[in-house]
């Protein structure tokens, strides 16, 4: 049984008692406990069940590498699954639940899987669920889903906040143990800016537990003196509870700071993601102890030897009264010594090595501990906790020589340096035969932009580990039978055993990456921290090759899982994404705007009056605009000024039509193609003066087209004298539209807006009321229309002045849908509706806009490619349903027969479709094979409900084909 020792515990404060619950039961621990140590103190050795076989599992480690003791921690908005009990610091009121069992931890139905373990070997899923095919969806998948998963998914929104923090330094030290603090001290002494990250809430690593003496001082004392000196140095930043999570290119490192996990609070961010740019990274990440593979090594009570002494020294918790130590190295002897010093019994040290230093044997013999050399554990006895071990010779097939009663087993298969951060960005490893470990190869570090190594490694992480003469022991005993190997766990969390890896090798999965995926070795939340090396050693043995030849799987960041919240940072709720607002946004909001997202903008889709449907609002807005007066907030349209002696030449290259011959004071509609000839944007260009043009783009195109212009100017035509400036947000722009537009504007007084003074497709600067304006006589609706721009800061005032002046005319603001319907009634194309990146101007009957006078323009050459010049390209037409209904958007026109995919032959598709209140019928545009040559033909458009809509091919201009209404 595990229990709290009457004294000791370097990290706990016995005067501060904390109350917590485990599976609903109230328990008590001390400040400084982890959840794991507090549970062990209450003899709660059973902490969870394994993923596949639902085997009872206890805690095996004392740190981030823990595979078994995963908990659902917290409640409601603070619930989080898969938390390692070993790194969860206890706090008052913590609510923890064990995972992966039903109905209870003690009695679990899923454990029946274990009875069928021989039917669930490596590759079981691949072998079993292939046939019959249809079984997958209805039989296998539901069963697997039912049994899959460790923790539960949170049901409530996260109650906490998170943030990022950008930091810069010359030297970043990851790991606050002795080696890390020494590296920090040295770097600071050189005048470097230093950041030190320590994942735990305390400094010094495991040196204090192991009784290390550093520079003549006990480790604890050395750590506190060194920390004081570092803290006093302005160039040094120390962060504890902050894990170095990943190393990326160019010295970029992520640090994962857990600010309130140990003390939940409302006003403090829970996690902070440090985004660090470091000149050099020193990893001082220590080492992880490996388990040994013997039968029953997963029973609660079997723990890593280092974890056993951690719990005793740090938390004064003994995993057992009688602990058998099993090892292949000297380091585990420290555990035996710690236990004896704590007054606990160590009946034997089972040492697999053929010979052990006599001095060591006699030292422990003096302590009353028998050392059994060349021995092995044949089997751990016990059902859901350890009751004893059967001993055999290591070089045997497992015949038991004796059994020893015990309630805990401390195992050590040697140490593996934590090479993860070294490896993340390409640092290579070398196999150290003597120490039986992969260690960083100093000659092959991850390299920076100059080809130099930017990560170095110190201390245990570099393989500088004091573990004596280790003997590589990968299976215990050496000649174990298949039944026994079937009980030797490599990956505790994913239930991968020695026999599974051997089977994978036998079935031809020779690459370590393949064997990993076939067996799921190392694929659990712990990412194989304990299982990796043991697994590949077993694989190497099965393949009869060397461990370095097998190699490791890839180490990818993060080192341990980091929260999604930390990654999101501040981006949630109102500030999840930037929302772009026009100067009139607040007015729209107050006046019934039904919003439509357009890029990051929100534009009113329509303005709903009380009790009005969206559909009715759109129809009212259109009718009102066509018969009297409408107002559109067009501020989001791109406005890019282009100026310079070469500006005309430049615009002639960018637009398909001529812009250089546009007269000052005039506007022209233009098209832009990509260099592959596809239509990418359109808009009205106004010539301002001799060498200045203002280019309007689509709302979505503003930034893209500005970048497109700069790309050509900076990279290709760098010697052309052209400047551009994106003035999209400088101006609020309002379209005043409808037969009463001029009359209304004239009531405000100011500039002459008559057809003579300002004809269609002209522009002028002047005053309207007391506003300085620029007025463009352009129309996207087919009505008399003035697009008026004012400085954005005056946009709201101008809009309100127009609303007031328009009242006698029944002015109505209209949204994007009315805009769309009115342009469709006029047969105007819309980028993104009629175009989708595969459409060229010729498809849309816009040949008139392709200048023949110019030598060249972007897209010109592409238009003569055979596929672009193909006469069978679908072309734009209008579509009028025979019965007046509205065609479904995106519907296809079908012809007789089927294509090679067994689909109906298709001869066209709908690109825009609306109900037109002006015409009181459905109108549409579409691209149709030989469309313009087939006027009057009726096409069939099957609907998704099985019925068919019939539509006649007509001209795309449904309303005012002569353009009389806009040119008045």
């Amino acid at each position, binding site marked *: 049984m595990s229990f709290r020792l009457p004294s000791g515990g370097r990290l706990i404060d016995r005067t501060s008692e904390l109350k917590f619950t485990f599976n609903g039961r109230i328990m008590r621990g001390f400040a400084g406990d982890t959840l794991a140590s507090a549970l062990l103190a209450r003899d709660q050795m059973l902490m969870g069940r394994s993923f596949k076989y639902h085997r009872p599992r206890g805690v095996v480690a004392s740190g981030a590498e823990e595979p078994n003791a995963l908990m659902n921690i917290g409640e409601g908005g603070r619930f989080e699954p898969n938390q390692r009990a070993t790194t969860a610091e206890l706090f008052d009121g913590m609510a923890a639940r064990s995972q992966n069992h039903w109905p209870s931890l003690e009695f679990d139905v899923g454990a029946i899987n274990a009875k069928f373990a021989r039917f669930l070997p490596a590759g079981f899923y691949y072998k079993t669920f292939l046939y019959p095919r249809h079984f997958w969806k209805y039989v296998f998948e539901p069963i697997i889903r039912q049994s899959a998963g460790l923790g539960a998914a949170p049901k409530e929104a996260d109650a906490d*906040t998170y*943030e*990022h*923090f*950008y*930091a*810069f330094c010359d030297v970043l030290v990851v790991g606050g143990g002795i080696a890390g603090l020494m590296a920090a001290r040295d770097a600071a002494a050189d005048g470097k*800016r230093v950041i030190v990250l320590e994942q735990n809430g305390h400094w010094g690593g495991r040196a204090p537990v192991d009784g290390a003496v550093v520079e003549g001082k006990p480790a604890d004392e050395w750590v506190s003196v060194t920390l004081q000196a570092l803290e006093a140095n*302005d160039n040094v*930043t120390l962060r504890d509870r902050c894990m170095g999570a990943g190393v990326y290119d160019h010295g970029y490192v992520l640090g994962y700071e857990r600010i309130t996990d140990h003390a939940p*609070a409302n*006003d*403090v*961010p829970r996690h*902070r993601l440090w*985004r660090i*740019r470091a000149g050099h990274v020193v990893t001082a990440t220590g080492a992880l102890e490996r388990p040994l593979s013997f039968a029953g090594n997963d029973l609660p009570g079997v723990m890593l030897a280092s974890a056993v002494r951690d719990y005793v020294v740090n938390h004064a918790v003994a995993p057992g009264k009688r602990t058998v130590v099993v090892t292949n190295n000297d380091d585990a002897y420290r555990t035996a010594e710690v236990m004896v010093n704590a007054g606990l019994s160590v009946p034997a040290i089972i040492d697999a090595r053929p010979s052990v230093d006599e001095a060591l044997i006699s030292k422990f013999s003096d302590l009353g501990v028998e050392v059994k050399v060349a021995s092995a554990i044949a089997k751990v006895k016990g059902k859901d906790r350890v009751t004893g071990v059967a001993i055999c010779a290591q070089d045997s097939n497992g015949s038991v020589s004796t059994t020893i009663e015990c309630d805990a087993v401390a195992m050590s298969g040697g140490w593996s340096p934590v090479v993860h951060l070294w490896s993340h960005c390409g640092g290579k490893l070398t196999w150290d035969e003597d120490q039986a470990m992969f260690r960083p190869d100093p000659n092959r570090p991850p390299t920076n932009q100059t080809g130099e190594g930017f990560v170095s490694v110190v201390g245990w992480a570099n393989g500088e580990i004091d573990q004596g003469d280790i003997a590589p022991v990968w299976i215990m005993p050496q000649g174990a039978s298949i039944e026994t190997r079937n009980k030797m766990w490599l990956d505790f969390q994913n239930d991968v055993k020695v026999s599974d890896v051997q089977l994978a090798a036998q079935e031809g999965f020779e690459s370590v990456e393949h064997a990993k995926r076939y067996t799921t070795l190392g694929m659990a939340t712990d990412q194989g921290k304990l299982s990796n090396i043991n697994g590949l050693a077993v694989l190497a043995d099965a393949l009869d090759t060397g461990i370095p030849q097998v190699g490791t799987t890839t180490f990818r960041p993060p080192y341990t899982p980091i929260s999604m919240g930390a990654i999101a*940072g*501040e*981006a949630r709720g*109102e*500030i999840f*994404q*930037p*929302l*772009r*607002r*026009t*100067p009139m946004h607040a007015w729209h909001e107050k006046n019934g705007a039904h919003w439509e997202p357009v890029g*990051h*903008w929100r534009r009113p889709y329509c303005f709903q009056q009380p009790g009005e449907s969206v559909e009715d609002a759109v129809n009212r807005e259109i009718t009102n605009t066509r018969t009297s007066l409408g107002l559109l907030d067009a501020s989001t349209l791109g406005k890019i*000024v282009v*100026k*310079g*002696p070469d500006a005309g030449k430049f615009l002639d290259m960018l637009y398909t039509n001529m812009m250089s011959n546009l007269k000052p004071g005039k506007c022209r509609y233009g098209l832009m193609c990509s260099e592959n000839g596809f239509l990418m944007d359109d808009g009205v260009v106004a010539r301002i003066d001799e060498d*200045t043009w203002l280019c309007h783009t689509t709302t979505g195109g503003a930034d893209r087209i500005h970048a497109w212009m700069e790309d050509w100017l900076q990279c290709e035509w760098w010697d052309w*004298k052209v*400047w*551009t*400036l994106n*003035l*999209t*947000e*400088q*101006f609020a722009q309002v379209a005043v539209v409808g037969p009463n537009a001029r009359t209304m504007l004239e009531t405000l007084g100011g500039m002459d807006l008559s057809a003579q003074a300002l004809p269609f497709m002209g522009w002028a600067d002047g005053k309207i009321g*007391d*506003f300085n304006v620029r007025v463009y006589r352009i129309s996207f609706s087919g009505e008399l229309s003035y697009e008026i721009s004012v*400085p*954005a*800061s*005056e946009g*709201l*005032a*101008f809009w309100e002045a127009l609303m007031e002046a328009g009242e006698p005319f029944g002015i109505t603001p209209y949204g994007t849908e009315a805009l769309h319907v009115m342009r469709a009634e006029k047969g105007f194309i819309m980028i993104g509706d009629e175009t989708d990146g595969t459409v060229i101007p010729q498809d849309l009957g816009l040949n008139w806009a392709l200048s023949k006078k110019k030598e060249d323009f972007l897209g010109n050459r592409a238009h003569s490619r055979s596929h672009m010049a193909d006469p069978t390209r679908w072309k734009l037409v209008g579509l009028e349903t025979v019965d007046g209904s509205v065609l479904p958007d995106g519907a296809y026109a079908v012809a007789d027969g089927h294509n090679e995919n067994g689909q109906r032959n298709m001869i066209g598709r709908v690109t825009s479709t609306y109900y037109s209140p002006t015409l009181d019928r459905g109108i549409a545009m579409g691209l149709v094979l030989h469309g313009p040559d087939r006027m009057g033909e009726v096409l069939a458009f099957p609907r998704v409900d099985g019925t068919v809509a019939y539509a006649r091919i007509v001209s795309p201009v449904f309303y005012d084909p002569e353009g009389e209404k806009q040119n008045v």
Partner: protein
Amino acid sequence: MSNAMSVLEGAVSTGFVTVRDAGLTGMVSVRADLTDAATVAALSSCGITVPVVRQIVDGVAWMAPDELLLVTEYADAPALAQKVQAAMADTHALVHVVSDARAVLRVEGAGTKEALAKLCPVDLATLAPGEVRRTRLAQVAAAFWLEDAENAQIICFRSVADYVFGVLQMSARKGSEVGVFTR
């Protein structure tokens, strides 16, 4: 000018630093080759000295090798633009008022650098007052400079002024101090 309104309408938020709307601010963009002698002379005739790389001096900010930003009173910007435009008539230059395209915010208090370091990938420990950084502020483009160790001015596009105010407010929440620049 009574029709002109600052997009944040004078908003103020107090956390471990104060975030406030700096109100309408006059801004003029000048695009020209700043190394060209004619450009320098034309600017000089308007009393404008091109600052060294990334500096803002007397309301003249170096934004790029071919771009200056002139910062002035809101009401003075159109006249300033006209004056510079006229002086540069014979050089290849583009001058335009951009006051209304942007919003200007202030961050004030001992934790100013910290609040900004949560949002901008900028080494604030070494950033000297008067150096303009054109950078990213959370998810949007921004430019800022420190006036001194405790005061910063931020310029962003006006359409995202609410967003910028929102993320600064969040970063400046009391209790979220990082404590790295305070020593």
